[in-house]
């Protein structure tokens, strides 16, 4: 049971950067960004290819993260190209731009890797390197502690960023785009920066997951966006949204809760690991749909 818990925490912390990215796009920017499914594998591919070619795992992780930012920028520019001037609340171009990038990234990722998966067994990963520097074996609790430190660092960086002039304008875009434009903010450019930051976080998860599980696979991020949404929803519902600083913690905690639920679910006999995507999709559907249904019931 303790091993299950440590591995659930491990997964929760690995994926919390992706969940923070999803929070940034869906909630802060009001941009339902579907790039996530592509940018996570992109980060993992870039990182894995650099590692098997002998690059430092720290550098490889950094490069993987940066590749995600590039993917976000591409989505942002496609959105600028496709959106019409008067359609601020029109989600169509936002969805399409993410779908286009993700689809294109499938090819890009295969090209980067040269095949559909890269094993990292026997290679020195970020965790091995850090472990040898700190003289601990990076499994179970030491790994959880390392990831927790990383999560806290990223949380505080993001918290600081969202309180800078740039971060404030980003938050205002999701809140009231017309208003922030009338305060002289170039919303297109600001949105591109936001998408870059969000997808960098997603790709950071990709890089770390590849190194923790020991391989990169072209299908590793299928459905990861919905898992991210589940984390955001759980975090907000359980831990609240009283301020930006607080909600960043909520979202990280939401990621942990989600992975714990998954781990517990897997202990149930009749649930197979392959059922998880269906269950996650159902959960997100119910969580998003419940308020709507409740409103309809109250009305009738």
């Amino acid at each position: 049971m303790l091993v299950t818990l440590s591995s659930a925490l491990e997964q929760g912390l690995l994926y919390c950067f992706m969940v923070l990215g999803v929070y940034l796009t869906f909630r802060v920017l009001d941009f339902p960004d579907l790039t996530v499914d592509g940018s996570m594998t992109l980060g993992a591919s870039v990182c894995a290819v650099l590692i098997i070619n002998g690059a430092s795992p720290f550098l490889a992780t950094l490069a993987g993260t940066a590749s995600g930012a590039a993917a976000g920028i591409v989505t942002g520019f496609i959105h600028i190209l496709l959106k019409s001037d008067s359609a601020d609340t029109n989600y169509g171009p936002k969805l399409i731009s993410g779908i286009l990038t993700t689809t294109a990234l499938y090819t890009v990722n295969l090209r980067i890797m040269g095949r559909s998966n890269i094993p990292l067994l026997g290679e020195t990963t970020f965790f091995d390197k850090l472990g040898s520097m700190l003289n601990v074996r990076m499994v179970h609790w030491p790994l959880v502690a390392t990831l927790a430190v990383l999560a806290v660092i990223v949380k505080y960086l993001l918290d600081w960023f969202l309180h800078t002039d740039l971060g404030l304008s980003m938050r205002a875009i999701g809140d009231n785009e017309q208003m922030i434009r009338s305060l002289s903010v170039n919303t297109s450019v600001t949105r591109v920066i936001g998408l870059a930051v969000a997808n960098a976080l997603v790709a950071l998860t990709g890089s770390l997951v590849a190194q923790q599980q020991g391989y990169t696979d072209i299908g590793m991020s299928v459905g990861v966006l919905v898992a991210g949404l589940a984390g955001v929803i759980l975090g907000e519902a359980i831990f609240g949204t009283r301020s930006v600083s607080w909600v960043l913690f909520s979202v990280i905690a939401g990621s942990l809760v989600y992975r714990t639920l998954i781990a517990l679910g897997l202990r149930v006999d009749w649930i197979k690991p392959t059922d998880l995507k269906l269950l996650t999709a159902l959960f997100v559907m119910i969580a998003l749909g419940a308020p709507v249904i409740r409103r309809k019931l109250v009305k009738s």
Partner: protein
Amino acid sequence: MTAATGSPSDSCALPRPSGRAAGFECRDIRKTFYRNSAFQIQALCGVDLTVAPGDFVTIIGSNGAGKSTLLNVIAGTFSVDGGELLLDGEDISKLPEHARAAFIGRVFQDPRAGTAPSLTIEENMCLALRRGRRRGLHMGVDSSRRQVIRENLCLVEMGLEKRPKTQVAKLSGGQRQAMSLLMATIAEPRLLLLDEHTAALDPKVAATTMELTERVVSARRLTTLMVTHNMELALAYGNRLIMMHAGRIILNVGPTEKKELTVAGLVQKFRDVAGESFTTDRMLLD
């Protein structure tokens, strides 16, 4: 940096004019909506208007006269089909909306339109303070900005300066509109556009908002265009009045004449000019 916390009494002084207020000119501004369709509407059919620096012009007219379209065209929300918009002699009609917003402040009719609800009072004010300036990785609300924000908030005498960390969503419509007005003016815009900004408020709140507008505009000597439905407001405020009808300016009342104008007089003038304008319209269309 100093911890800037003066007592409220000495920080409530009215702002002084910065001398940035611009002269403004519309030359033959034209705008058609739904061009080449059955719903084609000529919203502005050649608007000419010259405004001197520091002028406060009230714009009046019936529904569909083109008042709000004119403001939207000046702000860049809609592009013009033809004509020039000159701010201190410089044509701004090709600039995108956000670039014009660097020197144009706006308050909308809907009190929710001018503020970001999930941000705090001071975060909103801070966003407004950065109008026309670079927005980088500087901390949004720092102690020196906090002081400027405080000074401005206590102008509205609603106690907002005492709770800078309150979410704007928790404020009333009147409070939000007062904040919108502060946010439109805090960075000293060269031109201020007010689009029926008291029309959605209840009469009492509308009156205090109007009184606040008058104070802020005259203290900063802002060049101001105010659209309104309300003839009394149009007469009570500002030094000039224009009347629009069917996409044109049909009446332009200067400072001396405006002082003596009454609502009855204005209605009479409207009948005189609008009647004439109707016939010319028909002649043009036929």
